[in-house]
């Protein structure tokens, strides 16, 4: 009995706080999603499933989900390729090792919105250095933020700048913890660097690669701050992600009831699709 009391002393405070500030509001959101709470009539009435019906016909929501998937998977894929490449470069001894590592890590530590503000001045079409450098190199300047597809590329570019360090960090840690024996065996068999990479390094790195990709996908599925600062979802709705659309509906138009059902649908879709991706990726390892 005494032992039980000590046990509770450690776990309960944190658990209670977490349940109180997260689970309780979440349950409340479920109730709100069945109300017509808006700016005219704030309060909990019974609205039935009308919000949910509206949601299924709301093309702007489904389009925002499609755009989110494209931008999230696109940027995470590039982050993985570049991060892996950088980790391989820095893995073996190089000059200025510590300095280069810190430099490579810094972007993920800095405030995303604030760096996006700086990026916005860099990508400014007539006054920013991005187009200036392109002009010096002799190419046509690009309309970074004012046409739909380019605006998406710009968002991905900034995301890659910000989050490749995270991939780099995890993959470098993975590389450094690899055992030595398979490399000696490969060297004895006379395998070249490419052969060694594809039949030793890459398979050994599969578990940590999948972990890193999943963590990044989870984070990228929340994508909104970069979009808000760089393009405000524009031009038109060309870069509007789900989070940003729900924000507009809920906290700008103040359609709280409808936004509540949107956010729950978004949460459920994210959990289901991330679980499926996790299952597929881990099954791939099991087969190899």
């Amino acid at each position, binding site marked *: 009995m005494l032992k039980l009391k000590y046990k509770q002393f450690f776990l309960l405070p*944190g658990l209670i706080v*977490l349940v109180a500030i997260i689970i309780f509001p979440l349950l409340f959101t479920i109730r709100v999603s069945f109300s017509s709470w808006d700016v005219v009539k704030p309060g909990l009435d019974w609205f039935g499933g009308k919000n949910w019906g509206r949601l299924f016909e709301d093309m702007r929501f489904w389009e925002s989900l499609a755009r989110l998937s494209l931008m999230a998977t696109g940027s995470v894929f590039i982050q993985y390729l570049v991060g892996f490449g950088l980790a391989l470069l820095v893995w073996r001894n190089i000059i200025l090792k510590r300095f280069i590592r810190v430099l490579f890590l810094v972007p993920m*530590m800095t405030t995303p919105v604030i760096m996006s503000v700086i990026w916005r*001045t860099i990508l400014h079409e007539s006054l920013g250095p991005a187009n200036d450098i392109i002009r010096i190199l002799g190419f046509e300047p690009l309309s970074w933020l004012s046409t739909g597809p380019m605006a998406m590329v710009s968002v991905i570019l900034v995301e890659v*700048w910000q989050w490749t360090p995270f991939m780099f960090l995890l993959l470098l840690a993975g590389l450094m913890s690899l055992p030595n024996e398979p490399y000696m065996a490969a060297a004895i068999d006379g395998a070249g660097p490419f052969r060694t990479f594809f039949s030793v390094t890459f398979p050994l790195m599969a578990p940590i690669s999948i972990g890193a990709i999943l963590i990044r996908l989870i984070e990228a599925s929340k994508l909104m*701050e970069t979009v808000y600062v760089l393009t405000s979802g524009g031009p038109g709705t060309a870069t509007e992600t789900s989070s940003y659309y729900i924000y507009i509906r*809920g906290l700008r138009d103040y359609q*709280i009831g409808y936004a509540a059902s949107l956010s729950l649908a978004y949460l459920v879709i994210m959990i289901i699709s991330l679980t499926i991706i996790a299952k597929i990726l881990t099954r791939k390892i099991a087969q190899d």
Partner: protein
Amino acid sequence: MKSLYLVLKYLAILLWSSFVALPFLWALTTSFKTSNGVTGGATYIPWLQYEPSLEGWKVLVRTGGQGINIVAPFISSAIVTLSASLISMVLGTLAAYGLSRFSYRLGFVKNSDITFFFIAQRIMPPIVLAIPFFLMLQFLGLLDTIPGLILVYVALLLPIATWVMVDFFNNVPPQIDEMALIDGCNPIGAFVRVILPNSLPGIMVGGLFCVMFGWNDFFFAFTLTFTKTQLLPVAVVALNSSVTPWWSLSASALVSVAPLVIIAFVVERFLSSGNMAGAIR
């Protein structure tokens, strides 16, 4: 062949380093410009291409109508981040120690499920929580106040604190606890007198992570405050949407991210020792 590889390797490192450094260098040079260095197109080198001035920096500390007040948001951000980190680390360290040393059972719910429950909060998109948080703080009368933000940030940071500390305690041998218990301590005494002093590196790393995530959050600070309270990222982004000149915008951005660059140096030392790999597997 070998030297060609080396050249390509350092070229790639140089290329990526320039990409990484670009926004910082651009912000640094822009912060010393006045309109003569901005409105005529991109300029880079002071004295050669534009006449440098300290105006962008001076305006940050000037009070009254003609200045951008970045000092008050900086202090608010520091208060919110540090208090929420402290609360989260206290609760998170306790919970992590419990989860790593004792076994809990509630029906079919076991330790690993509770640990997962803590970490899984990171999956929650901020927008999903923003609407109930907004209503909850409105109900409590804490909207647009520092205590309200601290409450919300604890929800944000507690999972991170617990995650780092569970991983840390799992690597501390339980024999240390047992020796303290044999010496006549009760579990709480053993925790305070023996475990905590031996866990300072883990506590430091967990604390730095909390500070980093708290300092970097924009979304909750943005949706849950209006006029009375303003945190640093919100203040800087507000400059972006107004007619603020680029030089003071750049200077305030640099001031906001400076503490994080210092943290980066500390965290690098810990992370490159390979501890993160263990946490993922």
